[in-house]
């Protein structure tokens, strides 16, 4: 067998890392452009787009755009609203969808397959087609709160959360993952005396790490990027999320530097969330074959 010399090996590594590096740079460019531009005044920002300077923090660099963004819109409130809506939806969705999938995979009951089919069929229905009926429904739903019984959920967190907790795609991902768990583990737990609830909590969920991460990230991105629905159901600034908040910067005098500053700010939670779950996310994409 021919030995690969040290030099050949090194050359291969260099080529491999150069290619990977170029691909990485391609993906990072828009992000770099956004962040770099957020520190530039509008005139320079537009001039720089003609050259590589667009990606470099050069020229008149300042945090003025950020200060202006905060003056123009309640950025902190929008980010807070989005984090609350997204966070609560993700947590509830993980609980509800995994429990539903558990019942579909492990518990035998009449009509199970039919209902699962119906839920999976909802995957092909675009949200836009049900948005109007959903709006009508949301405007009439009852709620018992501090003011007693009221009707209509508009202008609230719950109207942005509840419709998205049960999610066909999430249930499908959990179902696929649970089907691959060895059935004997569940049977062993049953023989050992565990109830369905205990099997869910003590056996299935501790083994569901990768699919939990996948669903969490997919749900997080979908919820954080929500635009149409909050635009329809939230008229008051108090509950407005980040994407709808972007409108504040597309008024009469369009300030690109401020837009870039705002976008950089609202990207931070996404990056943090992704970095935390990155490893589990990649592992589960590799195992489920689901594209993000």
């Amino acid at each position: 067998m021919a030995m690969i010399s040290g030099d050949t090996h090194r050359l291969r590594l260099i080529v491999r890392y150069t290619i990977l590096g170029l691909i990485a740079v391609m993906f990072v460019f828009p992000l770099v452009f956004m962040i770099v531009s957020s520190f530039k005044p509008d005139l320079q920002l537009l001039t720089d787009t003609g050259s590589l300077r667009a990606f470099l923090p050069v020229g008149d660099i300042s945090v003025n755009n950020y200060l202006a963004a905060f003056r123009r819109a309640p950025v902190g409130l929008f980010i807070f609203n989005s984090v609350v809506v997204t966070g609560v939806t993700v947590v509830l969705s993980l609980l509800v969808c995994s429990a539903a999938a558990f019942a579909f995979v492990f518990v035998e009951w009449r009509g199970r397959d039919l209902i699962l089919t119906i839920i999976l069929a909802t995957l092909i229905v675009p949200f836009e087609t049900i948005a109007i009926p959903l709006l009508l429904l949301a405007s009439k739903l009852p709620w018992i709160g501090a003011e007693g019984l009221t009707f209509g959920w508009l202008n609230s967190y719950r109207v942005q959360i509840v419709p998205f907790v049960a999610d066909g795609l999430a249930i499908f991902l959990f179902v696929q993952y649970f089907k691959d768990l060895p059935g004997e583990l569940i049977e062993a737990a049953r023989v050992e005396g565990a109830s369905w609830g205990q099997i869910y909590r003590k056996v299935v969920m501790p083994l569901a790490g990768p699919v939990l991460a996948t669903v969490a990230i997919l749900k997080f991105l979908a919820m954080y990027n929500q635009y149409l629905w909050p635009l329809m159901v939230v008229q008051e600034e108090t509950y407005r999320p980040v994407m709808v908040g972007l409108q504040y910067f597309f008024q009469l005098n369009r300030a690109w530097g401020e837009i870039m500053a705002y976008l950089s700010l609202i990207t931070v939670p996404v990056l943090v969330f992704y970095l935390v779950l990155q490893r589990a996310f990649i592992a589960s994409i590799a195992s489920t074959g689901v594209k993000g």
Partner: protein
Amino acid sequence: MANVALTGLKKSYGPVDVIKGVDIAIEDGEFVVFVGPSGCGKSTLLRMIAGLEDISGGTLSIGGRVVNDVPPKDRRIAMVFQSYAIFPHMTVRENVAFGLTIAKMPKKEKEAKVAEAARILQMEHLLDRRPSQLSGGQRQRVAIGRAIVREPAVFLFDEPLSNLDAALRVDMRMELAKLHQDLKATMIYVTHDQVEAMTLADKIVVLNAGVVQQVGTPLELYHSPANLFVAGFIGSPKMNLLPVTVEGVTSSSVTVGSPDLGVAMLPFRPGAVVVGDQVTLGVRPHMLGLGAGTRLPGAVQLVERLGNETIAMLRLKSGQEITAALGGDQPIRVGDRIDPGFAPTAAALFDTAGIALTRA
């Protein structure tokens, strides 16, 4: 501890009957092995006893109580699975204690039980490891440990040794036998390996196509198989089965003949057998010896020398092949003509329907 009674037990999946009315009585403290080929329904039967499969008909009682509709956890059973089914995210200690934790047993009592099980199975040093850090044999021990701590009335084993390598299987087999002696619990064990069945069982249940073929002690099954299926299934090498014609009957003997055998008078009650019937003579390879009894002459086709015995495959005059297990290291070679013989009292005779005739 408890006895287990299966009465007319049936299981169907839609129109397909997989268990067709099984009656078995298992005494308290007995080690019973269900054995049969793949798909014979033995695992299904075990899972019905465990409560993991619904019962379509008949009754199942454990300790005198009918448990047809009792959930698995309330049947006082513990089960060891073929894949071990130990929880990968828990340590050995947590795995063994799982059932006790579910039952909310006080911590001190729980720890004492886990320690005792670990001592019996010699796995004290493994308690803080994860399943991924254990070998196959060690995982099997954990699964057995999890069954022991709950002190069930009945232990159920579903092919527990089939994922182990040959040497380990022999070791674990002995340990299981010892465990049964120590615990004196009722144990029901499913396997397709007849050596496991023969060595472990107080009583063997041979199943085929969802029907019990014979229930008996290992030696009863070996010496007096009830039918051709059991005759062919129990014993290694397999029993030689030769077609013969009935040439004469008395109240206590059947005379049979064939080109290979000549004519032989065998001590069996004829039952419904009459002269001219085509019946089957069964002779175990180990019942054949050189220079004794009724002869079966043939040419040696193959010789396997195992040291303590020599297995020879012979071709008889009719072209039929038989196996003879000859004691010791015999100096025979391929191509030799030999004529091993058997004692008529050691043979088995099966009527036209394949049912064994009773010895006179």
